[in-house]
């Protein structure tokens, strides 16, 4: 454990208030993984902000309960994390890759099984090998985020393999004559990275390059060369 510098340590309050910029937040979280004193202080300050939050408690709208319970009933629960702290740098990179993979294996199994039904067995095998080669990469990192039209997406990226795997859960089928199109974003214009109409199978993106974000838009069937609408999904790619 390193002794925190004064400046880094004073960020605990700002962090607990979710008032840091995204980059500073990532830096502070990296620091937190190594600084037990800071982690303890953040825990206490989070308990404190929760009290501020509870003080604002109101009556939830009457219809909310039924909506939440119904959506929960059709939402698959995430498996427990098998590792204490995925953000920590201590365990070897291979372990981190495994942890990210563990989170996805069940979802993937479902996706791959559905995929198998309408593809030739050898292509399925090749696709599956490719997916697992990304998940098992020593530098695999995962990011996840909501889809604005419902559902969630998880992206696992391996910079070494220059590939990413995108898995969507609860994604509505694309409207007729439309398709979901994936984009690699970063420097320059968004680059097309494949299309899908349902969330049935994981999508492998080749040549991730130095992209910093993956996004999804709804495009006319066949896909577009450049996005024509606002993204329904976007996540920052871990470096």
């Amino acid at each position, binding site marked *: 454990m390193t*002794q*925190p510098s*004064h400046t880094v*340590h*004073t*960020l*605990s*309050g*700002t962090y*607990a*208030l*979710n*008032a*840091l*910029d995204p980059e500073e937040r990532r830096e502070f979280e990296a620091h937190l993984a190594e600084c*037990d*004193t800071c982690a*303890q*202080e953040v*825990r*206490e*300050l*989070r*308990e*404190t*902000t*929760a*009290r*501020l*939050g*509870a*003080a*604002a*408690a*109101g*009556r*939830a*709208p009457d219809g*909310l*309960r039924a*909506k*939440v*319970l119904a*959506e*929960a*009933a059709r*939402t*698959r*629960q*995430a*498996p*427990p*994390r098998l590792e204490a702290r995925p953000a920590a740098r201590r365990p070897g990179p291979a372990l981190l890759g495994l942890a990210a993979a563990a989170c996805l294996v069940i979802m993937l199994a479902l996706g791959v099984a559905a995929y198998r039904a309408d593809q030739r067995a050898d292509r399925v095998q090749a696709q599956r090998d490719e997916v697992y080669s990304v998940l098992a990469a020593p530098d695999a990192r995962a990011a996840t985020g*909501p889809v604005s039209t419902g559902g969630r997406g998880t992206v696992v990226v391996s910079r070494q393999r220059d590939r990413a795997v995108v898995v969507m859960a609860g994604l509505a089928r694309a409207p007729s004559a439309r398709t979901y199109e994936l984009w690699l974003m970063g420097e320059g214009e968004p680059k097309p990275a494949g299309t899908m109409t349902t969330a049935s199978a994981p999508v492998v993106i080749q040549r991730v390059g130095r992209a910093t974000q993956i996004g999804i838009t709804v495009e006319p069937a066949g896909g577009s060369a450049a996005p024509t609408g*606002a993204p329904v999904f976007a996540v920052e790619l871990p470096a």
Partner: protein
Amino acid sequence: MAPVDLPHARDTRFRGPGRGTGPEDDLAGLVGRVARGDESAFAELYEHVSGPVYGLVLRVLRDPAQAEEVAQEVLVEVWRTASRFDPGRGGALAWTMTMAHRRAVDRVRSAQAASDREERAYRADVPAFDEVTEQAEARMEAERVRRCLGGLTELQRESVTLAYYGGYTYREVAELLGASLGTVKTRMRDGLIRMRDCLGVNR
């Protein structure tokens, strides 16, 4: 109680899971059952946390329709990620409220919502916070929090409340208050530490 200004030198006792029998432990127990897929436990948990989650999100977003949408996302996320809750790292309410605040703030900071919010600033139909604070329990908690906020310096109080209830980043808070970034960062920490001590948050 002296405000703690030093960045270190506090005893860091480990708070073990499941100690005592306070409401927090009941909540933690419920989350544990939810993690195992127990829908009735989730319905019970909903009764405890939906008011705080919705109230906080509404406070930050101000728009009841958006607040309901975000509260729904948060509550379903509680169901989805219950297995990730670790009682050794804090209480179940803090876990839930952290998620709620993050989601609310993400929504505020997304470009679309930001422009909506600016637009709404010109309208006068924003429901007042006190109108939506109905539950007796929440009123008592609100009273305690108000009293403790009263014990902060003005700059501490404004830094904490603008960031937390306003959903502003510390840079925006500094701009609003005409204070330096460094000052705002330390006031946020000092203010929360005083709040922690005043509210008697478990260490």
